[in-house]
């Protein structure tokens, strides 16, 4: 091409290094990817909450949140739910095969500025835990930068919880409060039972010098807010991550706009206060 501009559309080649089937139903797999080019690996730098385009040549591209923390070096993790054309094709791939990665894209959680020094409450439901895993690992690696950390995470059944080994390890740490819940009683489960909003209401994290990072299905977010508001949480303390259809990741193509903002560029992370100022096109 006759221009010297960098090409933001070119995916970095990457190899699938490992695949972990996360859930019993097999619909969620975590792919560990290693960028093939050393230069790409050296250049790569992301913030928890950012996403990347996973690119399957001949199939297409999809935006997926980066599940690995920047503190985990040498590879990238993506936990992918099988839903559309590309994710289905990705689920059929094997270790050693080649994919493309384009990113990191979006803003991510403000882990190095607004969230520093604060008490952090992470609330997640279902398979929306991915970028929050990245955030949590980052915060644990920089534990001194944050106050109390509380994690409330729920799924429909024990078999649908992500990162089960890590959940166990976190539960044993004393610098972290974890509340893992499932929707209904299940054989062999001796943990919490109840919907995430209910558990959040019971845990009742203090809003004092705190921020909540919430990811989950819209219905969960909707019902989690009232109990939090009741104990004094305000919209500017609550961080949400949106998932609109995206194509370019550059804030140009128009697919992900919510009113004047582009989720891919200005988001995906917004405070609830910011979202109140936007049309509900998400």
């Amino acid at each position, binding site marked *: *091409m*006759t*221009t010297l*501009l*960098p*090409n*933001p*559309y*070119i*995916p970095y*080649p990457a190899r699938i290094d490992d695949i972990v089937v996360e859930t019993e139903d097999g619909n969620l797999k975590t792919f560990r990817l290693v960028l093939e080019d050393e230069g790409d690996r050296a250049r790569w730098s992301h913030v928890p909450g950012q996403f990347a385009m996973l*690119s*399957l*040549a*001949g*199939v*297409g*591209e*999809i935006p997926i949140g980066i599940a690995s923390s920047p503190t985990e070096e040498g590879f990238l993790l993506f936990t992918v739910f099988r*839903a*559309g054309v590309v*994710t289905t094709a990705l689920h059929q791939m094997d270790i050693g095969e*080649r*994919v*493309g990665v384009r990113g990191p894209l979006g803003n991510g959680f403000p882990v190095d500025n607004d969230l520093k020094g604060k008490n952090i409450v992470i609330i997640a439901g279902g398979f929306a835990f991915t970028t929050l895993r990245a955030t949590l690992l980052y915060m644990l690696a920089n534990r001194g930068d944050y106050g109390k950390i509380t994690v409330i995470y729920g799924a429909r059944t024990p078999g649908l919880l992500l990162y089960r080994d890590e959940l166990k390890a976190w539960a044993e740490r004393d610098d972290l409060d974890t509340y893992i819940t499932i929707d209904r009683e299940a054989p062999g489960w001796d943990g919490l039972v109840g919907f995430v909003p209910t558990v959040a209401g019971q845990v009742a994290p203090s809003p004092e010098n705190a921020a909540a990072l919430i990811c989950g299905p*819209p219905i969960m977010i909707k019902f989690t807010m009232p109990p939090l508001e009741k104990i004094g949480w305000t919209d500017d303390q609550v961080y949400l991550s949106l*998932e*609109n*259809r995206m*194509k*370019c990741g*550059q*804030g*140009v*193509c*128009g*697919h992900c*706009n*919510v*009113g*004047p903002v582009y989720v891919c560029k200005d988001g995906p992370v917004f405070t609830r206060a910011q979202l109140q*100022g*936007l*049309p*509900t*096109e*998400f």
Partner: protein
Amino acid sequence: MKVLRLDKADLERWFVNWAKTREVYGPLRQSSSDSKSISVNKSYTDWAILKDGKFPELGTGLPKSPIKKFFFPQPETLFTCSKRKGDPDAFVFKEPENRDNARKVLVGVRPCDARSVELNNLPFEKDPYFQANRAKTAIVGFTCRDRCQTCFCKEVGGSPVGTEGMDIAVTQLDDFYMAEVITEKGEELVQEGGGASEASGEEISRLKESKAQVESLFSSMSDPAQALEAMKAKDLFALYNAPFWSQLADSCINCGICTFLCPTCYCFDIQDEVVKGTIRRIRYYDSCMFPLFTLQASGHNPRGQKVQRVRNRFMHKFKYFPDRFGPFSCVGCGRCIRECPVNIDIREVLKDLLAVE
């Protein structure tokens, strides 16, 4: 700025000379049916290669399609790659080798269309493809002498005699032409075209007079700066919740005519095509009018209703884009008004928006 005086023969010579090293495009009447029973449906001009110094057909009115396809082609091949087994580079995207690198000259571009390139340049400022296309394409604009029925260029910040986006601006004065050479690219074209004389002081003042006269034809149009400021000052939700959107949606059939023929609509989709062992990733026009535009894999659709899609197009042009980039994302060419099968009139929408308290 250099101003030249040309006769029609000079311009024709320019076209011939340019065609030696470039592709020269201009509006030409489309071919018509010679059948007895099948009526002529293509009695319009559209962009085509000007062969043998053919003069572009520049009546009142614009060519059917805007010039965005020269900068933002339908489709643009972003990358290609092979899927051959054993190829170490299989599934690695590369920029296509056989890119169309021909230099192009667009002749007879009206001020509204020329301005659209500048407006599209705002979102595409860092886009390597758009910029590469722009670098190889020169615009020889022709200022307007009449006002089209659906023109409202001045209301959205343009001018019938504006030169924004042009490399050379040609103005017809009765029996001869004046050419303002605006950019280096334009200067290069003049050198290649050859043999034009500098205009005299008297001719230049005639040019000014003529432009002023044309501009006066448009004096009834409202002040663009005021409209722009007014729109920026308006509350997003007041505009968003205005009652007229549902009436527009009543008529709209949600086709893509307005967006595809709009010079400043630039939404696109990216997709991979696989044909006989070769993969290419293309970027092609998409339209916010289509339900699929925002449909997520989960089945959720943030703009699942027609009224939301209709609203998005106008809000993008008149509110979201100005808030982000400054100007309206509209050049007032009126194509969407003329081509809309159900007569949705963007001028009315703008008026309605400006009336929102």
